[in-house]
């Protein structure tokens, strides 16, 4: 079964550094998402992306965050200047058809970002 793949599985970075988290969504999917889960807390929506542009973003997704689909297969999340509170598990997800209840959201296994 096709799956969403994320790399790296674990990223350690120093505060103030830029990080890029990478995702390869399922190939025929059209809608892409980033969610994050701080240790012990809820999974939180960050951003949705469709037709090469952001369709919705949460208040967490401030100017330090950006997303890109540079080549039609990869979907990246960039954090420009990481803060300690950015430490979390970041999940990429994709879906074929956002309007259909029969079209499930597929999550990757996440990238654990640790900011020191």
């Amino acid at each position: 079964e096709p799956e969403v793949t994320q790399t790296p599985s674990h990223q350690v970075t120093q505060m103030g550094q830029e990080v890029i988290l990478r995702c390869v969504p399922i190939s025929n999917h059209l809608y892409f998402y980033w969610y994050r889960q701080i240790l012990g807390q809820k999974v939180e929506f960050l951003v949705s992306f469709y037709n090469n542009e952001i369709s919705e973003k949460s208040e967490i997704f401030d100017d330090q965050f950006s997303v890109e689909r540079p080549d039609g297969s990869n979907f990246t999340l960039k954090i420009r200047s990481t803060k300690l509170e950015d430490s979390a598990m970041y999940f990429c997800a994709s879906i074929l058809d956002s309007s259909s209840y029969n079209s499930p959201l597929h999550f990757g296994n996440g990238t654990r970002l640790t900011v020191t």
Partner: protein
Amino acid sequence: TQLLKQSPQFLSIQEGENLTVYCNSSSVFSSLQWYRQEPGEGPVLLVTVVTGGEVKKLKRLTFQFGDARKDSSLHITAAQPGDTGLYLCAGPSGGYNKLIFGAGTRLAVHP
């Protein structure tokens, strides 16, 4: 603000027991989804319930959506150690499949 509250937070039971976990909100949702998440992995969709009062079965798991579409339950019959995991409910909040999640019920089934 839409919120999903899950209970209990933790559940530790013996193999063969039955259990029910709950997902409640004061808001109406057009649908609710249940996910299972294992350590180090992303959530995996189990089921989507759409119609008020709907009951869906997935082998030993029974999902129910409340008549008013504000709550849902997951019942597991004869739990097995393989059922161990974090069970999350989630509902759409806005367009484009933006989901809000509950905090989850962490289930441990002991042999």
